[in-house]
Each structure stands twice: as C-alpha cells, then as structure tokens.
C-alpha cells in the first residue's frame, strides 16, 4: 500500500504512536506521508521529540502537533521542539522510558493500570497515587493507547507478520499492540511461509497496513 494511502487512517486530534529510538526504527517515510496528509492537533507518543529538521521535527515544525509524550525530548539537535516548547506552542509530558514502554504494553494487554517501581520519590511522582506493596513504594500508572501506530520493521509477510533488525526493534512491537490501527513500514514483503514462525516478533493480528517505501 502506498504510504500516502496508509496514513489516511490518521485524523485530526488523534494520538499517534511513533516507533524508533533516535533514527533506529524511525518510520521516516510514514512520517513524511503524514506531513503530506495534513492531519493536525495530534498527540505524538515517541521516545524522543525529533532531531534536526526532518521526520518528527518536520511534523512539529509544520504545526501539526499539540502535545508530545516522550522520555527524552532534549537533545543536541532538537531545536525544533525546543523552540516550540519555549514559545509555549507545544505541550510536553515527560515519562520515564520504562513507564512509556510498560504503559503501552498495558494498553495492548488489557491491563487497567499497574503499580510501577519507577520515579518513586522524584518530581515525576507528583500527582500519582502511591501504594506500598510488600514494604516497597509504587506509583499507579495508566495505559497509553494510540489511535494509530507508525512503526518500522525489517520484513513483513503478506499476512502482516513482522520481523525487525537489531536494536531497530525497540518500541515497534509494543506500539503495534497498543494502537487501534498499526501501519508498518518495511524494507521488503515476503511470501506467506517465508518467515520462521518461531522468530516472528509481531504477529499479523497486530498489523493493519504494510508499506514498502
């Protein structure tokens, strides 16, 4: 499916989960198509908040993003985000990376909420419910659901089963479970039966659209 057609699933006001850790696993062509598509007022959930002037940074620069939920927005080349944030033009929710991953997993797994060991006693615990379990403090964390997930994998078969490459796997498999519609950008589509069933990382049930840029 062409990228432009695939990203039509994104509507104004949607929460979009965007894979990648730095550039590894970042679905750049899908983001470019999303910019072209024009949907706005988006909440973007991703580990970072864009680098340089392309990809996520270009989406931000185009004024399409209302809020960013991420673990690490501030980087040496995150000038687009930095400028919007300092100008008060974008909201930010900073989430510890492990909570970010686990909250999306919870969304995909039907968990209503969970008690997390991370951030207890820190400023990021503010406003969160604390509970002592077996003598240790935990914070209550809620699921993060996406309307759409944009991820990058290595190969897909024609059913939509996915395998990834090395550390580009990162958030892709978790985001695929947490969104109503998952769009995967892959290097190549292979025939059904070519992927080893023992090595499939994201089963096809989680994948709605596959794009080969």
């Amino acid at each position, binding site marked *: 499916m062409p990228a432009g057609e695939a990203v039509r699933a994104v509507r104004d006001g949607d929460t979009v989960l965007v894979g990648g*850790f*730095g*550039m*590894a*696993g970042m679905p750049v062509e899908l983001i470019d198509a999303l910019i072209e598509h024009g949907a706005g007022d988006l909440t973007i959930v991703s580990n970072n908040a864009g680098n340089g002037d392309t990809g996520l940074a270009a989406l931000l620069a185009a004024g399409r993003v209302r809020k960013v939920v991420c*673990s*690490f*927005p*501030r980087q040496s080349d995150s000038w687009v*985000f*930095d400028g919007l*944030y*300092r100008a008060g033009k974008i909201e*930010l929710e*900073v*989430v*510890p*990376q*492990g*909570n*970010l*991953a*686990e909250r*999306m*997993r919870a969304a995909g797994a039907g968990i209503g909420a969970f008690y*997390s*060991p*991370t*951030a*207890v*006693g*820190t*400023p*990021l615990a503010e406003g969160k419910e604390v509970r002592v379990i077996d003598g240790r403090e935990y914070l209550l964390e809620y699921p993060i659901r996406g309307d759409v997930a944009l991820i990058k994998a290595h190969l897909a078969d024609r059913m939509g089963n996915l395998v*990834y*490459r*090395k*550390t*580009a*796997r*990162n*958030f*892709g*498999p*978790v985001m695929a479970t947490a969104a109503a519609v998952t769009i995967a950008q892959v290097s190549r589509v292979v025939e059904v039966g070519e992927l080893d069933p023992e090595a499939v*990382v994201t089963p096809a049930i989680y994948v709605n659209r596959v794009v080969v840029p």
Partner: protein
Amino acid sequence: MAEVVARDIPDGAYVNLGIGQPTMVASYLRPGSGVVLHTENGMLNMGPLATGDEIDPDLTNAGKQPVTELPGASYFHHADSFAMMRGGHLDVCIMGAFQVSATGDLANWSTGAPDAIPAVGGAMDLAIGAKQVFVMMTLFAKDGKPKLVPSCTYPLTGRACVSRVYTDVATFALSPDGVRVVETFGTTAGELAARLDVPLS
C-alpha cells in the same frame, strides 16, 4: 576512574553502562571476564563501538552511537528490555550524577533550573532496577561544592539506590550504616572528611 570501576565488576555480571563516562568502563573489562553488557534499547551482549564498515544504523547503544554485536547476543523489544531492568535482573548499572546523598539518593536527570526542558530517558528505571547502582562523578563541582551530600538539592532520580560512588579522588561504599571510604587517590580520608558534610568511616 573507569579502570577502578571495571575492577569491581564481578566476572559474568550483567551490566548496563549509562551514557557518557560510564561507557568507558567497557574498555577496562578483563578479556574473558564474561561480563555481558545490556543496552536499554533492547540488546544483551553488546560489543564495542562500531567503526568503519561495522557501522549499522540499526545497531546503536543508549547514547545512539553505533555499536557492535558479540556472539551470544540477543535482541528484545523495549517493554521486555525495561522489564529486565525494573525486575532486578541486572547485576550492576553505572551512571553519572549531579549529586549523591549519604543515604544513596541519586540526582542525575535534572538540575532543576526553571527554564530547562525536562528529559529523563531510562535513568529512573535503571536507578531502581539494578541490584547495584554504581555512580561515576567528580567529587566536587566546578564551583568547589561537594557532590556527595547529606541530602540532594537537585531533583531526585531515585531514592536510596546507590551503593558505590567512584570519584576522581576517592571511592565510597554506601550502605544503611553510612558512607565508607574504600580507597583514596592523591588525598587522605582525613582531608576528605574536612571537605565533605557527610560523616565518613
């Protein structure tokens, strides 16, 4: 400092090296030590930094630098990687710090400056997850103030989580019993006690 830290990592340990200075510890691990490096972005048995033809954009460390893969490596997704960290399966993690308190509180993610853009990454997950948290830092800030303090003034990353502090002038062991000077470099425990607000043993 990295060499001193490396000496304290048990053979066969599973270790996460934080961004920056801690990554240098890898170079001082004894060949054959069997130490396995974890990177938060989903890999065990990470190898040294990649150079030349080895560079692969799909294979990076937590600092987003290209790295290599050692035989026996495995890849996993982010939720599995942080489950490994938060579930207490890593033996040691090594991080930098702005401040460490005498009771092992760690402050390393934010200076608390009002105009700073907050960014935490995996630091809070590592702080509470590893069996032992080692900190590497200079003992004194540029303005001369000690970074090993009675109580952190910077925002916390984790509470009562640091067990060892490696600095340019001394190594400290932290426990519920207090702070113990393990080793000094070009100074004495007496001189350190005079410059720190923390009781030393």
